[in-house]
């Protein structure tokens, strides 16, 4: 038997399949788009086709993410907090602090090092510092989103963005461009702004980080500039799992397995 986790996020729909032993068999990520029910069906079809595993061999499905209750045929819905805690334990064992920055929310979790959540804080009322924020900034700067994370490598200035509100930050970036600021410096400023904001979220659950194993997941963890800058402002190493945007779905798949095996 295999077990499926589906994470229905605001920007992407992720699916992960694990086997009886809890090993990841395959994963798939597609954009959520405007109709999430269709995307959910599509990502489920896609992962089964990709892995060559027939639906009958899927023992259970756990759904997570903001659209979790729209996943048909699920065993249960579990929040992305719990799923991330479980998922990161499999991907990076021993993680004690996990920060997840997704499409439209960010969250920090304190874990017991075995995947159990001890405390968490969320910022889900505003897109500041999330994937959507970075998308908007990349658009303003007229660069590819994927480029953003590398552009600031050689920037060293201390340019800062005072506002983290997407609307204000956009106009601030526009005026920086008008003033002739170099794009890498602006990008560095953006990353610093996100890192500072994320630090605040992390410190709410873990006021003292010394000696704790810190990891980052979510789509924004694919941006090395943000990860590097966050490491600098927190003064610690930040580990990033191999497919950071599938951690929630991985956790969901593992919970599907745990619950089925327990029975």
């Amino acid at each position, binding site marked *: 038997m295999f077990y499926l986790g589906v994470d229905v996020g605001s920007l992407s729909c992720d699916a992960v399949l694990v086997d009886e032993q809890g090993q990841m068999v395959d994963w798939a990520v597609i954009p959520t788009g405007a109709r999430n029910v269709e995307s959910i069906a599509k990502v489920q079809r896609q992962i089964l086709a990709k892995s060559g595993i027939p639906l009958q061999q899927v023992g259970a499905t756990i759904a997570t993410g903001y659209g979790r209750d729209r996943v048909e045929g699920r065993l249960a819905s579990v929040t992305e907090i719990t799923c991330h805690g479980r998922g990161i334990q499999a991907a990076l064992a021993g993680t004690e602090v996990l920060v997840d920055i997704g499409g439209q929310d960010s969250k920090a979790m304190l874990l017991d090092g075995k995947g159990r959540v001890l405390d968490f804080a969320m910022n889900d009322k505003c897109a500041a510092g999330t994937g959507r924020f970075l998308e908007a900034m990349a658009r303003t700067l007229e660069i590819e989103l994927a480029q953003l994370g590398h552009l600031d490598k050689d920037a060293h200035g201390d340019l800062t963005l005072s506002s983290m509100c997407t609307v204000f930050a956009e106009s601030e970036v526009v005026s920086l461009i008008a003033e002739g600021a170099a794009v890498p410096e602006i990008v560095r400023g953006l990353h610093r702004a996100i890192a500072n904001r994320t630090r605040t979220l992390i410190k709410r659950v873990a006021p003292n980080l010394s000696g704790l194993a810190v990891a980052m997941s979510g789509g924004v963890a694919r941006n090395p500039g943000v990860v590097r800058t966050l490491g600098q402002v927190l003064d610690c190493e930040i580990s990033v799992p191999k497919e950071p945007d599938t951690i929630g779905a991985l956790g969901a798949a593992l919970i599907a397995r*745990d619950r089925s095996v327990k029975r």
Partner: protein
Amino acid sequence: MNQEITKLAGFTCAYTPLPLLAAAGFTPYRILPVGQAPDQAGSILHDNMCPHVKRVLDRALDDDLPGLDALVVINSCDAMRRLADAWPKARPAEPVMLLDLPYSADERAVNFLRQELLALAEKLAAGSGRLPSQEELHQSIATYNRLARLFDRLDARAAAGTLTGGRAGLQRWHQRSVTEPIDKILAELETFAADNDHPDKAAAGAPILLFGNVLAETEAFDLFEEAGARIVAEDLCTGSRQLTVLPENPAEDPYLILARGLLNRPPCARTIHAEPTGDLAEQVMRRAQETGARGVVAHVLKFCDPYLARLPAVHERLRKEGMPLLVLEGDCTMRSLGQQRTRIEAFVEMLQGEES
């Protein structure tokens, strides 16, 4: 109390001396921050204001309220003062009566409040033509005590998860108890309380202490229970703090009883804890331990400065004991609470130790 009660006195704060309002010939009518009235109050005050006060004002502006013969506002915080200031913009014909409220319960403060209550009685009497006698006030206090004791008993049953209708059902009674005539509600509630216990769906849930200010909507309680929580203790202005048992002593001045009783009510956001200082954090911790809660949920309205200023200390204190805390910021709409559903569910999953 009798057929003379025809007038409505609006009120908005759990510190309101309900026995006095009733004895003076008014049916106390709590303007609960519920309903679908459109947002307009921000233009009179400011959008960044207490959602409770804005919601109450929105209801007045939208005529989503019966006509009131008086509005009794307690000087409990900045937002309530602003409500008193703004009411005439919404309902110019309705007299606003502000009752000042001291911060300590020493004799000086008790005497000041007694004078305030006497002044309020006279203002009320000007509207109803009925200045209550001492006997009437004593009787009114006794009647409200009966209601408060009934709620205490029902609360214990809800905590155990055996009350028919659960917390949401109890909340509906809380709502009715402050918007309908007391005699009617007492009779109905006594009948309900005589009913047998039935195990409620929440009985198996993760035990939590819910504290905060205003959470009037019954659906909110369903939301917690559906997420798998059992509210073993509830400490809200629109719930268990609405009514408090006052001492009964026919030999004493009833205004003094009221004054002392109000100042010794269970603490809330506006209580300043001078001795011992900053005791709110300790109280929350003690309450959680006493009630066997495994986690604490603070439901605090946005812009409620007195609570928001204290949450860091509460969090620090609970963290020290390993007692999880979830802070939910509300705005008196179910929409906002619904948006925080993920947090509530994640919190419950955390308490249940989901899949380690």
